[in-house]
């Protein structure tokens, strides 16, 4: 139990992942689902970046008089992976929001269950 408190960054990251996951699964509103997806991704990026942090060292930014001794800086690789992840998350959010707009204009509801009910009603009547 003390390990959960001494690694508080990772604990909060997993809690954010769980909160985002539950919002994605249980909320019926599409806009809230998309926000839950983003929160879930933020939790994962926090976990990844906290793997690279070393207590007491500086950011890996060099200048003219900075030394290139690697023991003065934190691990820079996880930061690069998080950048890729953030870009992917933005494009995914953009596509899902455009799908939501199209669905709302067609069915006038933001509730995914009702949309599928309307679709199956239309299919059973026509076709």
């Amino acid at each position, binding site marked *: 139990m003390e390990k959960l408190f001494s690694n508080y960054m990772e604990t909060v990251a997993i809690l954010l992942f769980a909160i985002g996951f539950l919002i994605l699964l249980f909320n019926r509103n599409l806009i809230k689902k998309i926000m839950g997806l983003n929160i879930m991704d933020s939790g994962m990026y926090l976990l990844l970046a906290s793997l690279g942090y070393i207590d007491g060292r500086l950011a890996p930014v060099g200048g003219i008089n900075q030394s290139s001794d690697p023991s003065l800086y934190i691990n820079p690789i996880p930061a690069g992976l998080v950048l890729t992840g953030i870009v992917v998350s933005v494009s995914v959010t953009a596509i899902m929001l455009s799908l*939501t707009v199209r669905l709302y204009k067609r069915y006038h509801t933001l509730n995914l269950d009702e949309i599928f009910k309307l679709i199956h009603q239309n299919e059973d009547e026509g076709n």
Partner: protein
Amino acid sequence: MIIFKIFLLVILLICAIAVAFVKDNLAAVVVYMSSSTVMAVVWIVLESPDLAITEAAVGAGVTSVLFFVTLKKIQMIDVNLNTIDRDKKEGDSHEEK
């Protein structure tokens, strides 16, 4: 320093839980935008300035603007920034927990 970090993380958790429980769509987007901003400060505390710049531009900037444009296109907000609750007018409520 540790107390400052724990304070930021607690605000982040409160914002995340608030997104689930707020009923109004516009207010939920504003809460999400504020949690993105707090996240950007957390990146600075973790000594990654490139992540902080990206998160501030992307999370609190681009993504939130996309959400506002979506809400405008489905006509849930009008120009005076009041929320029109179209679904409540039709008699059934879609915003559930």
